[in-house]
């Protein structure tokens, strides 16, 4: 569909870039924040920052779930694995540093850690091996949480439990907008989180904080038009909520997914790596489903972990205060092969993305 409909039309890209330059303020700085690893990939891969006026900056917020999962929760997964249970997880979680070791380190020490493509694959593995205990490390934002909810309601096998670590994006955006020294002027809201939650949760940003907010898709033109729409709102002094990604995002979102999430999860305060506690930002299993809670089943609870290792600047990269290249460890002590900070791990981590395109991004 994308090809047929010219979502990557270079002529449109050239013309909208010209319009962005026309409409942008001539001197005052504009700082637009996105909160999605896939947006960072599009922006970096296609060199979008190099197309924008010098005073228009697009920064990457905490949009990578792997990066914000705190060390304490990785420690819990590691503990379960070291106790002899099999831990299943998404591939990009494997190298995320815990306080002392990652799941990959635990695997190297003989623990059973298996990578899966989806939670349903994890369940299929558990069904094939009924005599072994399996725990699934359920990380991810609202995009991923519905799949966990589906499988919990499908009654997983007795030898299966969930280490629920899902986090919610709008509370993190609220925290960013309230950080006065960040001086944000607009949000590009995450397209795929929005397919689930819809637009309503973002209404507070223009209404209460006067922050232009545009839900955008992931083609380079989506991002460029998103930036244009924010700049237009700023110029007219009319902050509002707009949906650039209407082909995938409905106003009400995916109501079925919302209903299933409401059934199985409770919303609680959550610790985000490098950001501290954000109120009402984490899903935990509702007590009705406690039988599937890996914390209770395997008696693990880690309250505090070492989120930021010595010298690491992930806590500043994750809110766009510094660029990855400004971290003293970037591609020296911290590399994709041996990451020190969580932002270097996942293909959606800002540092990891910058490594891949280092010769093309503005250093």
């Amino acid at each position, binding site marked *: *569909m*994308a090809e047929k*409909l*010219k*979502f990557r039309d270079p002529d*449109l890209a050239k*013309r*909208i870039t010209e*319009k962005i330059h*026309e*409409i942008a303020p001539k001197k005052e700085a504009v700082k637009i924040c996105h909160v*999605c*690893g*896939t947006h960072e990939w599009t922006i970096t891969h296609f060199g979008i920052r190099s197309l924008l006026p010098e005073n228009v900056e697009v920064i990457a917020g905490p*949009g*990578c*779930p*792997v990066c914000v999962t705190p060390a304490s929760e990785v420690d819990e997964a590691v503990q379960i694995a070291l106790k002899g249970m099999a831990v299943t997880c*998404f591939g*990009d979680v494997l190298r995320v540093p815990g306080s002392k070791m990652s799941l990959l380190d635990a695997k190297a020490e003989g623990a059973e850690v298996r990578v899966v*493509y*989806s*939670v*349903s*694959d994890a369940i299929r593995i558990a069904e094939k091996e009924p005599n072994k205990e399996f725990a699934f490390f359920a*990380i*991810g*934002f609202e*995009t*991923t949480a*519905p*799949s966990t909810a*589906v499988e919990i309601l499908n009654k997983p096998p007795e030898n299966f439990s969930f280490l629920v670590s899902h986090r919610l994006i709008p509370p993190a955006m609220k925290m960013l907008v309230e950080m006065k020294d960040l001086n944000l002027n607009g949000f590009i809201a*995450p397209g*795929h*989180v929005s*397919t*689930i939650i819809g637009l309503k949760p973002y209404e507070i940003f223009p209404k209460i904080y006067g922050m232009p907010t545009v839900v955008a898709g992931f083609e380079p*033109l989506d991002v460029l*038009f998103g930036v*244009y729409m924010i700049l237009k709102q700023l110029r007219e002094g009319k902050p509002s909520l707009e949906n*650039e990604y*209407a*082909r*995938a*995002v*409905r106003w009400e979102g*995916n109501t*079925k*997914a919302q209903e*299933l999430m409401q059934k199985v999860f409770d919303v609680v305060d959550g610790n985000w790596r490098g950001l501290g506690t954000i109120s009402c930002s984490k899903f935990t299993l509702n007590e009705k489903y406690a039988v599937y809670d890996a914390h209770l089943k395997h008696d693990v609870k880690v309250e505090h972990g070492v989120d930021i290792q010595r010298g690491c600047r992930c806590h500043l990269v994750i809110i766009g205060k510094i660029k990855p290249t400004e971290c003293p460890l970037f591609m020296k002590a911290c590399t994709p092969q041996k990451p020190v900070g969580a932002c270097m791990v*996942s293909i*959606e981590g800002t540092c990891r993305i910058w490594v891949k395109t280092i010769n093309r991004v503005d250093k």
Partner: protein
Amino acid sequence: MCLAIPAKVVSVRQEKARVDFGEGVLREVNVTLVKAKVGDYVLVHAGYAIQVLDEKEAQETIRLWNEILEAETVQK
């Protein structure tokens, strides 16, 4: 992590659908979260279809983009 890939629904059987990611990549995905029928494009995230793509809205987006570009040109 929130990466989602569009795919065309080839067949549906209860909560499972076979989808085509293009260039011959076929995979079974879970469609519990959406009402998808054969021929629809769905967004697939970690093995689950999370939304049905709206082709009319996609065309509308392109139309709006062109409108934005034209309108601004006239203002010049």
